[in-house]
């Protein structure tokens, strides 16, 4: 099993979810994260005092998939998340051992 992890722009989440579903995967987990990278943050001004905020809001998407589907799914996520401008994020794949579905105790590919 693999875990496909993506850091994306928040407003692309719906597109990514749709693409994942279209790819045939019926579940995913998202987390609100703050990213730091090439994309510049922003400046806030309160009573003339400027604060530079270097972190940018991002969403992390995590998807468990079968080994064979992982590269294709990653590719699909990359395409759905792309706007072409800086800060679009990253997608990577991590190895996973032994997945279980809590409700049933099913393991492996049946668990997802």
């Amino acid at each position, binding site marked *: 099993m693999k875990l496909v992890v993506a850091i994306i722009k928040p*407003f692309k989440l*719906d597109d990514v979810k749709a693409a994942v579903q279209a790819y045939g995967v019926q579940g995913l987990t998202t987390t609100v994260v703050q990213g730091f990278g090439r994309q510049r943050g*922003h*400046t*806030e*001004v*309160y009573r003339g005092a400027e604060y530079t905020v270097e972190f940018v809001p991002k969403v992390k998407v995590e998807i468990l998939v079968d080994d064979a589907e992982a590269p294709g799914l990653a590719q699909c996520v990359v395409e759905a998340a792309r706007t072409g401008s800086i800060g679009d994020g990253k997608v990577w794949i991590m190895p996973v051992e032994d997945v279980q579905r809590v409700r049933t105790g099913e393991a492996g590919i049946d668990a997802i």
Partner: protein
Amino acid sequence: MDINSGDTAWVLAATALVLLMTPGLALFYGGMVRAKHVLAMLMQNFFTMGLVAVLWAVACYSLAFGNLGDGGWLGDLDHAFMRNFNGEVFNTIPLVLFMAFQMTFAVITPALMTGAIADRMRFSAWVWLVAIWSIVVYAPVAHWVFAGGWLAERGALDFAGGTVVHVNAGAGALAAILALGVRRGWPGTPMPPHSLPLTLLGTGILWFGWFGFNAGSALAANDVAATAFVNTFLAASAAMLGWLAVERLRGGHATTLGAASGAVAGLVAITPCCGFVGGMAPIYIGLVAGAVCCLACSLKFRFGYDDSLDVIGVHLVGGIIGSVLLGLFADAAVNSAGTDGVFLGGGWSLFGEQVLAVAVVAVYSFVVTYVICIVLKTVLPGGIRATEQEEITGLDLTLHSEVGYSFTDR
């Protein structure tokens, strides 16, 4: 006439109450937008308190309330730049207090429009819109109806602003959103309220302030004020029940936002009526307003205009309901300055004048507001609309360099 301390005491308090309504409105609306746009909404409202008050002192009061009772179209400039107030009395209160009381109405009327144009107008466009609107829309309309202008002389009644405030703002709002276009993603993308507790707080403040608005419009602490007070209360309550009843009859839950919206709809509808009706009339008017405004809020989906926070559904529709129903329910026994409506045997003449007043104000406000917006669109360097990127990132950060909330401390 001399100053009466009791009347003055009440109008002082009432003026403070109405002033509070604009922050209340800001919170009411602010809670309904997404978190990334909350400050832009608050800012449009608070800024209106700043700009319109100064304009009112400089010229608009005089344009609206000069030539009092002339049956005409516009005031004069006798009181421009705060002249000629010293020692003057209006009925039984200081004239300058009357000016302040009316100032709060001039502030909140354009502020009502911010709910319709939410989340997409550039702040600088709002600055221009509100300035011009106050002069060319609000001041003349207030003259026609509140200052004994031509509509008042014909016999139209408006105790506290059904036409001047709500129909006026509602029609202007409709024009503004047509000029502005829909929010990016509307209606497909969900745009749920970010903080209903804020909206409910705003509702409470509005309800509270509305007593000043309506009962204060008696300009005295007398039985008309008391009647206006009770009517305001009962209409808000009944409209809440009317709105929630529709929600239940449609098969859904009674919602908190529905309760709040219903109360506001009732407050809107009773505004023109409150000092002219009695008995159970406020309850009937409220029930109708609550139910109809609830239904009216769905029209935008059918017709495709993005009235973001339902200014048309609540203020335009509610203002029309109240102004027109006054033609039915008006009761001269309640207020000798009023007259009898259809149900009290007064015939259809008041009703006709009410319909005329509504139509005139709605058309005037709609047309002039639309023209202003189109002109601003051409004239202002950046136009009147925020860019797509600004809408996505949030107007707070992009137009005001601020964020509304920052709960995660380091």
